[in-house]
């Protein structure tokens, strides 16, 4: 696997994972805020 492909894959996969986790965390936080 070439370096470019590896870093491209890593960058996209990590970014998508982090963004997904961030939004889900935001939902949990908003739920907690509303419950308080």
């Amino acid at each position: 696997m070439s370096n470019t492909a590896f870093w491209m894959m890593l960058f996209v996969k990590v970014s998508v994972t982090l963004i997904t986790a961030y939004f889900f965390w935001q939902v949990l936080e908003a739920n907690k805020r509303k419950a308080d």
Partner: protein
Amino acid sequence: MSDKDSWGSRIGLILAMAGNAIGLGNFLRFPVQAMQNGGGAFIIPYLVCFLVMGIPLLWIEWGVGRYGGRRGNHSTPFILDQMGRGRFWKYFGVFGIFTNIAVAAYYCYIESWTLAYVYHSLIQTFQSMGQSEVAAFFEKYVDVGSSTSGIPYESIVFYVACLFLNVWILSRGLSGGVERVAKIGIPLLMFFGLFLAIKGWTLGSSGAPKGCTDCNSWLGMDYLWKPQFDSLWNPKVWLAAAGQIFFTLSVGMGTIQCYAAYVRSKDDIALNAMSAGWMNGFVEIVLGASIVIPIAVGYLGLDWVKENAGFSMAFQTMPFLFSKWGVLLGTVAGTMWFGLLFFAGITSSLAMGTPWMGFMRDEFGWKTTKAAWSFGALVLVMGLPTVWFFDKGVFDEYDYWAGTVSLVVFALAETILFAWVLGIDKGWAEITRGADMKVPLIYKPIIKYVTPTFLLAVFLGALFTPKNNDWSRAFREGWELDPSSIIGNITHKGLVANRSYFSSQFEAEVGGSVDSIQKQAGGGFVVHVNTVDQSSKQYSFESDAVPAVSAGEQVNIGTPIAHGSFTNRVFYIDMARLGLLGLFGFIAWQVYRATVRRERLGVTEVSDAEDEDHRSTKQ
């Protein structure tokens, strides 16, 4: 009007919405599209399309749904009627129910394959089979007349069982049925997906057969992720990427609007839409791209996968590859793979039932159970032809018109309605009302200008696709339509022979020389033709036909190769189209009946000013 149903929790709603989006396409269509469109070249247009078309459409559809739900409408005909204030929009909204029933008709069939393959994985049917036997097993399975397990009409039995399961879950309501399945199915799907993705990442060349130099899973990932920036100028890649965004997010169907119609008027939709949308992206990009292609390349080589990448790989290739992992791990992997596809499928097909159910409950006061069973009956009537005449092209016809063209047409129209007819200011207020996140202001002009432009380009691109999808040549040398374009499809441009419904002779569909004529054991015969492009084509005939050619003879397109009584493929294709038109007409008639009923009962639309307190569903 009924508005008793509701979501049990916010997490349940997000998982159900993500489940609606996460489907078979995440695992099968996305990697194949990426392979067929230059690998790494595909991912950049895909991400751009997600940002400027996918996210706006998600917000629009969530907004449209909540807007309608606040006024007691849970399906698109009367939601669009309220937004557009015109008869056109009401009947255009029929698409939001039609698409779901038509897609469910064939989607449940694929879903039933996954169910059947879970069963066959568990009883280790594939363990002792070679690759060609696994491929033949699938052919036998979809042939209604034969059985792979001794169960007569096996494919129909699994189809009906799958449909029954869908109807039963739907009859339990949103929180008691759909939401509960999503809460179990999505985490399980992620777990199964992660397990298989790790296998894909770590396989390397450990499964390479002797002498295979390109059998390495990392080569598959290299091809998928190596950026090829010159392909960015190819409209074909952009259209494929935009098409994938449609399929993957389940936009343009009417399901998101229906689910969102059960959200309380002051609750957030902006953050929910992002959470569900990105969850779908995670499953597609992180998990979906790491399973089929890398594992297949690891065993069969990059060249083989480039040539054979397609939807059928899931059923015709993967069971064979899993069998190489030994009895225990092969059984576990096969069960996980088809289980994962089953959960992806059922969480989507359940969503397809809700618009029809919402409509019948709203307009005719039907109970949930009655509405669910009527959905099942409609799907069964529409779906049996796809099962029975699978090899005649009925399945593909449904997929093209209902699962492809209708989505684009509906999404384009609803975006124009939302941003231009209702007005972007009102639309923006709908998206941001009660939002738990700050919606970037840049999306206001994107929704108004960029998204409709993108959608229009996708639609025109599909309408006038040039020959061989070669855009630069079409611009240079003149426009000849490809048979796969919408116009080419309508005019049956791809059918070069056997263009009449019924005929007394069957014509060759490709030119070449007749290699052999083989008699079949049960009567009938097969004509093998070596085509001019060095490939071969087989024509199978029943016992009541007689050959019109002999071995060694040259045939051209249109040359009769058998005499007898034939019902040609074009007949089934046109009947499928008629069936779809009939379904659309039937739903439009129900909308008309509902309109008459509303007038008789004196039901008035809730105005913007009074809609705030109209609904009070629990959440």
